[in-house]
């Protein structure tokens, strides 16, 4: 079987959609109220060194995914143990995102439809995408990102009539410790979640730089989120922003143009369909590749369906209410830290030390024959 390859453009689009994914619907840095945009900017700044670590790992371990990296660095036993943790993390994250969307659909439109059906249909779509391979997902992302950008631009322009710029004032009134806390939460969800791309970017074309893919992807996703957060703040104001679920939906639902053009909130549902679908598919893809590597299976495609079923079943039972879902975000910032920061940093440190020892050995070996000659 030929190895799947994605181009730099496709990788950038997938990462941007992944970052934008559920965060656009659930809302980021809402706790910081009118300073949410500031918290988001700080989170993007924090994300720069974090994604440098991810990029460096991809450069050090060429053509390897995150599971190969752990197994070659920490040995079979510890490597596979950490890999299993990452598989569970990918499955858990996928189920959380699926549940975000089913909750959103139930709250916004299909209030009498059991969430099981929404989850099942999203799941079937993701199974089809992952079974088709990462190349198909890459090509889809190229189209998807254009639609998402158009939706963000259109909804932002449409809301110009109801924007009140004074909603952003007073700046930094929440205090810097609070803003920093919120920006850490925004870093863990969604920016550092891109750690899962360590399992995807091994399929990047050889000439393409993983640094570029990461920086442009997270940058584009961050920029779109920034526009959305600014729009929500200008339209709703800090107090309201801090007290509602699904702020993007609310802020676009109050747009009425010329007394006859309304219901723009359905565009937010389209965002969900495009970006969220990519995010769930990436989680599923990484989980399947991990299972295929850890258990030495023949092909990752053969286990897409059971892994997806497990993910979707988890999504059905993970929360009991929308409130519980939003409360979980506080726990999530701590729960995700080992996967997003501690393990990658540990891996990078060990890999750099190994690389240095290897270089020193090679230099010594090169020096010896020269000395013998003289």
């Amino acid at each position: 079987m030929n190895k799947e390859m994605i181009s730099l453009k496709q990788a950038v689009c997938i990462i941007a959609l992944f970052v934008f994914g559920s965060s656009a619907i659930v809302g980021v840095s809402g706790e910081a109220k009118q300073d949410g945009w500031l918290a988001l900017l700080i989170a993007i700044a924090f994300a720069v060194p974090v994604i440098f670590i991810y990029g460096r790992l991809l450069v050090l371990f060429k053509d390897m995914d995150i599971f190969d990296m752990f197994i070659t660095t920490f040995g079979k036993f510890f490597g596979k143990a950490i890999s299993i943790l990452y598989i569970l993390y990918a499955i858990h994250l996928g189920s959380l995102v699926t549940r975000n969307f089913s909750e959103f659909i139930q709250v916004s439109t299909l209030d009498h439809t059991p969430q099981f059906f929404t989850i099942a249909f999203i799941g079937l779509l993701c199974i089809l995408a992952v079974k088709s391979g990462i190349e198909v997902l890459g090509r889809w992302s190229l189209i998807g990102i254009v639609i998402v950008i158009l939706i963000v631009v259109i909804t932002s322009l449409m809301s110009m009539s109801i924007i009140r710029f004074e909603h952003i004032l007073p700046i930094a009134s929440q205090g810097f410790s609070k803003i920093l806390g919120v920006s850490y939460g925004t870093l863990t969800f969604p920016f550092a979640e891109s750690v899962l791309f360590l399992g995807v970017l091994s399929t990047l074309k050889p000439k393409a730089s993983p640094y570029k893919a990461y920086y442009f992807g997270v940058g584009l996703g961050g920029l779109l989120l920034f526009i959305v957060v600014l729009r929500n703040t200008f339209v709703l104001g800090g107090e309201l922003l801090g007290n509602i679920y699904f702020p993007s939906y609310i802020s676009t639902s109050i747009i009425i143009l010329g007394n006859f053009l309304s219901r723009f909130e359905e565009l937010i549902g389209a965002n969900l369909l495009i970006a969220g679908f990519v995010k769930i598919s990436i989680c599923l893809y990484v989980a399947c590749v991990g299972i295929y590597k850890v258990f030495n299976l023949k092909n990752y495609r053969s286990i897409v369906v059971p892994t997806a079923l497990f993910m979707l079943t988890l999504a059905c039972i993970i929360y009991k209410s929308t409130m519980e879902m939003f409360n979980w975000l506080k726990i999530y910032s701590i729960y995700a830290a080992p996967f997003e920061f501690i393990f990658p940093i540990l891996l990078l440190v060990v890999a750099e030390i190994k690389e240095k020892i290897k270089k020193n050995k090679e230099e010594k070996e090169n020096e010896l024959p020269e000395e013998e000659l003289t």
Partner: protein
Amino acid sequence: MENIIFCSIIYFFFVIFDLKPLAKNKDFKAFWFYTVLLILTYAVHILIGIGVDIPSPAEPIAKGIGALFNVRS
């Protein structure tokens, strides 16, 4: 009840069109992995369908982290 019927139809199609070929190709590792997860998830869906309250795995995680870091969910 509609959950159980819908779920059974989907699972039936997966068994026929996805699981059966694995056995035919003698990919037994994947076959057993598939079968175990299929039975497990189907059982959970049946339980949900008949109204059993299944505890969420997020609860012990939240409790553990809450106790360790003094965070309230």
